[in-house]
């Protein structure tokens, strides 16, 4: 299925892009997507953490991704 990936901060630097289109197997979870991304972009391994958001909210590793979702990569935040 087809999803959109959006990245901020260092995740944007690692992808060399703000948004990316991605094809992943139907029924993939956030955990599955994370494995795919780590394979394609090993630099993610070096981050202190990598969280994900869909619809402007954090999602858990087990969360299933749906066709057309925009999945946002949230590297370690550093506001304030």
């Amino acid at each position: 299925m087809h999803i959109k990936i959006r990245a901020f901060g260092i995740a944007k630097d690692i992808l060399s892009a703000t948004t990316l289109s991605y094809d992943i197997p139907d029924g993939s979870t956030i955990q599955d997507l994370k494995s795919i991304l780590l394979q394609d972009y090993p630099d993610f391994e070096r981050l202190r953490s990598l969280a994900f958001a869909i619809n402007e909210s954090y999602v858990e590793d087990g969360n299933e991704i749906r066709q057309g979702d925009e999945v946002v990569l949230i590297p370690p935040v550093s506001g304030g």
Partner: protein
Amino acid sequence: MSTGKENKNDLIDIRLEVTPLLQSACREFIMADGAGAEVYFIGTVRNRTRGKEVQRLEFEAYEPMAISEMRKIAERALGKWPLLKVAIHHRTGVLDIGEIPVIIGVSSAHRNIAFEACQYCIDTLKETVPIWKKEIFTDGEQWVSAHP
């Protein structure tokens, strides 16, 4: 019509601004006749970090989610403590030394609650709000806290 929800929103002021934050604007919202205590946290851009001289900071935010996460923090604070008002104002863009990335203000009848709640808000903001800070040095730059 959810009056409770509307009332709660009257107690919270969330802002994500590209222009300088003003302590006076924060206080204007925070003041309340029933308040005996106001506590403010103002984050400022330091000229040094880990022994290196900082030129400036750049803040990037995932804006709609940053706003919604800041609101969640304020709502949770209002749920935990009997506060009168909570304001969380954050800046984005390029900030020079001395400029203000964040102002948090809370008011309550008594001071201990105000201190606790204000510290809770800034501590949680730094953990959950999708905003990223890049330090610009004379000889390079780096995203803060990205790596272990």
